[in-house]
């Protein structure tokens, strides 16, 4: 039963994507529904299984590892799957306004969207290093197709730059996989721990894979492709890119680090990754502070917020793991809400330049409210998911006596407040705000509703943390200190 449900979680969106390509336009709506709507129900079955019995493993086609390919669902991947399903569904609500079947780009958007969804689900389930490479390529290529969808020159350029770097990144990852296979003869992520001894070749292999994934995750100083790509993509695409697509690369680094090579002595490498994360936080925030376009501000904010996910490596404790997972979750919702709200503003105003946004709150109150609520969570103000994540981070740094990380986390919150209040100040307090914007296009209510739902989700995440944090704790790698 669980096996069938997990198979459907990948294959239904895949089938729907194929259907969206070959079936006539009149059937597009049906394909979309088939590919998206049953997913939460289907995910309930494996959820009950994992909550009751712990990690669930499938040997595909009955061939067990090391020869066969395995899928493994444990509490962490379960959390990621729920996040992916929830976000994709909510963002699809928004996409259904801008890419309603019959509209110009709809027949190109939905197949790619469903394929991206299927690819992400497969990636999160996979336990095989090469299979992960294949799913990563699927995710990257569909994501780039979605960025380039509308064919505007800046988006095309951003997509091309992303493509070249992403292909380079994939090759580095693949080279690492090849070196690991050459030494161990296994490709299963969960068999590495016992088979892969530290030596110069295996260290090189793991380092290559991590560098590849850092490029895909746009970690400073490998972030250069992200702002243009996320800032020029269509709204729903920016939302899923910032909320999920860059995060799965970091999720994979966590997997490699804590599950693949848990016995290695990696203190110096952990420090290096932590420093990169810190630089990402400071640089991304400062860059967000000087941008003139709303979507670019939000995109640079993603560069900054991704840095927190790397602080897990130097802190390496149960608390830090909970903090990082919770940050991943609440930042995902908040950032998706902000990108969707920005997309609505851009759509009705025709521009998202900051100086044109004065007074927009009177005309698009719901979207500005969603933007502000998302911002509250990103800044880490209580009560919100972002606040809780930052609090857990501070607690983790405190109990590890890591004062420099403590200061960095606090500074990151202040900087986030600075770049977000800059936006809100222009929107709500600018002297030119009266009488502006007489000729706005109306945004569809569903589009604003989707942004609002995600923003409210990011706030509610501040209240309902216990079951999620318990789930994360249940899925922790062995041997992590409290």
């Amino acid at each position, binding site marked *: 039963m669980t096996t069938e449900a997990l198979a459907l979680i990948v294959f239904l969106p895949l089938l729907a994507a194929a259907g969206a390509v070959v079936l006539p336009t009149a059937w597009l709506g049906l394909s979309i529904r088939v590919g998206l709507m049953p997913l939460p129900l289907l995910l309930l079955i494996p959820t009950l299984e994992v909550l009751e019995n712990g990690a669930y493993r499938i040997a595909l086609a009955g061939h067990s590892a090391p020869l066969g390919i395995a899928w493994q669902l444990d509490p962490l991947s379960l959390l990621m799957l729920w996040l992916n399903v929830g976000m994709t569904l909510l963002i699809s609500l928004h996409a259904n306004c801008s890419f309603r079947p019959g509209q110009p780009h709809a027949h190109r958007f939905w197949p790619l969207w469903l394929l991206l969804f299927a690819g992400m689900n497969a990636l999160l389930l996979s336990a095989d290093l090469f299979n992960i490479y294949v799913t990563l390529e699927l995710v990257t*290529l569909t994501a780039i*197709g979605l960025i380039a969808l509308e064919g505007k*020159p800046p988006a*095309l350029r951003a997509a091309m730059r992303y493509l*070249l770097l992403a292909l380079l990144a994939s*090759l580095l990852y693949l*080279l690492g996989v*090849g070196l690991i*296979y050459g030494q161990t*003869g296994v490709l299963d992520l969960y068999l590495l721990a016992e088979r892969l001894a530290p030596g110069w070749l295996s260290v090189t292999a793991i380092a290559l894979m991590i560098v590849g994934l850092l490029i895909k995750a746009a970690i400073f100083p490998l972030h250069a492709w992200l702002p243009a790509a996320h800032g020029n993509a269509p709204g729903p695409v920016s939302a899923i890119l910032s909320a999920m697509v860059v995060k799965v690369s970091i999720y994979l680094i966590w997997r490699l680090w804590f599950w693949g090579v848990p016995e290695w002595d990696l203190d110096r490498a952990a420090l290096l990754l932590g420093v990169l994360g810190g630089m990402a936080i400071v640089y991304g925030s400062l860059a967000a502070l000087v941008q003139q376009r709303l979507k670019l501000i939000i995109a640079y904010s993603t560069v900054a917020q991704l840095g927190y996910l790397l602080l897990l490596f130097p802190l390496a404790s149960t608390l830090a793991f909970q903090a990082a997972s919770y940050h991943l979750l609440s930042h995902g919702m908040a950032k998706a809400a902000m990108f969707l709200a920005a997309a609505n503003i851009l759509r009705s105003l025709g521009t998202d330049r900051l100086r044109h946004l004065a007074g927009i709150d009177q005309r698009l109150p719901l979207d500005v409210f969603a933007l502000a609520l998302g911002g509250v969570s990103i800044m880490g103000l209580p009560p919100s998911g972002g606040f809780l994540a930052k609090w857990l981070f501070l607690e983790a740094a405190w109990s590890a006596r890591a004062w420099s990380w403590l200061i960095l986390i606090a500074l990151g919150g202040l900087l986030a407040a600075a770049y977000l209040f800059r936006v809100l100040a222009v929107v709500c307090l600018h002297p030119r705000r009266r009488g502006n914007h007489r000729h706005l296009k109306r945004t569809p209510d569903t589009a604003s509703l989707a942004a609002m739902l995600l923003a409210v989700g990011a706030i509610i995440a501040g209240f309902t943390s216990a079951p999620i944090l318990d789930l994360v704790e249940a899925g922790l790698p062995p041997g992590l200190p409290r």
Partner: protein
Amino acid sequence: MDSATLYVLAAAVLFGIGVHGLIVSAHLMRKLFAINIMGSSIFILLVATATPISGQADPIPQALVLTGIVIAVSATAFGLALMVRMSQETGKATLAVEDEPENDD
């Protein structure tokens, strides 16, 4: 020098050529070629790991290389399509830094 070493050396040289091409060339077609050369070098390395010390060759790396080639072909096709579209829209097939009007009006 045995054949495995030869393969690994060839892979290293090709990888270097690929990286050089990716960085140095401006035209997107050359950049895509460079990426393909890097890909080939990794495939050679994978095949080298399958070289039998005694008896049969290991089939798994060969299966990986086949899959890898399929992915490389699709990614290249996509990259070329994107490049063609770019040159139709902007009149050139390069990514110059001054083309990024991030913040101007």
